[in-house]
């Protein structure tokens, strides 16, 4: 190998290493987003990222504090079954808590917050 070609090889390798580092960096930034507990609080900025139907349900729940699916459906003028489905989606996303009190199931924003 001549000096010239070894220099070229070194530059090629450095470029390759630099490219690999780029991919590590992009992966690293993605990891950080997933594991820092974003899903357990429903604040207004998170509310804005929800699809329209869930946002309406969540906003009504914010106003009511804590409510059954019936109470919520009355507020939003939707079918009870529809609201119940949306509420359970929000529960699965971690935004809404579900608590049984006697025969009734109450939904509320956040962890045992409510009113």
């Amino acid at each position, binding site marked *: 190998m001549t000096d010239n070609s070894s220099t070229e090889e070194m530059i090629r390798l450095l470029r390759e290493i630099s490219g690999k580092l780029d991919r590590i960096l992009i992966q690293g930034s993605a990891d950080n987003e997933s594991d820092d507990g974003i899903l357990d*609080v429903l*604040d207004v*900025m998170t509310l804005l990222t929800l699809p329209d139907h869930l946002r309406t349900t969540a906003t009504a729940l914010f106003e009511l*504090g804590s409510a059954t699916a019936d109470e919520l459906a009355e507020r939003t003028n939707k079918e009870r079954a529809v609201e119940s489905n949306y509420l359970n989606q929000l529960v699965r996303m971690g935004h809404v808590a579900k608590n049984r009190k006697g025969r009734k199931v109450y939904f509320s*924003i*956040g962890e045992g917050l409510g*009113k």
Partner: protein
Amino acid sequence: MALTIAIHSYKGGSGKTSFAINLASAYASVGKSVCLLDVDLKAPSSFNYLLPEAKHWVNDIFEGRYGVMDVVKDVSKEMGTKGAFYVGYSNPDIVAVRGISSKDRKWQSKALKLLMTAKRDLSNAGIDIVILDTGAGVDFTSVNAIAVADYVISVGRPGASRQRLMEQVIGGVYMPLDKDCYIIENMCHNDNPTDLSGKKFDLPVLASIPCMCDVAVRCDNEVLVLTEPDHAFSKKIYDIMESLDKITS
């Protein structure tokens, strides 16, 4: 229920606070029972010292320390308004201001609930109009208040750069929260080719207030609708109040 109006601006320096205090004063001067709350905890408004002092801060509401009725003060006597005129100030001390930046999403979620409670308490106390002077731009200090409001008034200076910013705020904040919004073009210059009522968003422009040098200076020291109700600026504010009455009735 009290009618809650959030005064917002997608960018600072639009005259939002002067507009908020003058609109609140206009309502109080015609006999409405009004509450003006400064919810811009990161940049406490100048009306802190245009009006008499109070014992507690709006910050205390968000911290859950006091209810809104413990925090607000009726200044109708000092300001000479016919209707009750309650005001709540946010704490201008830098330690309080810096602290707001460190609040996490959980705190902000609670803050939203406490603000909804405050709105209900004000209704129960017989307030007709609640005016929220929000933070500028997109921040919890503004978006929480917009979420609570029945109407949003977006105060802005016309200009190409602002038009773009406004498009983003309308599409990404006002619309998803399903709010009735109205635009006030403020500090307008005759030779400015752009205005805020573009084709891209069809929000109604409630009024266009020209840029007046004396207003910029005087609003810092007095509440123009009360000290000079015949001033061109004051007249605009009363006109806006009448338009709002029609819209909301």
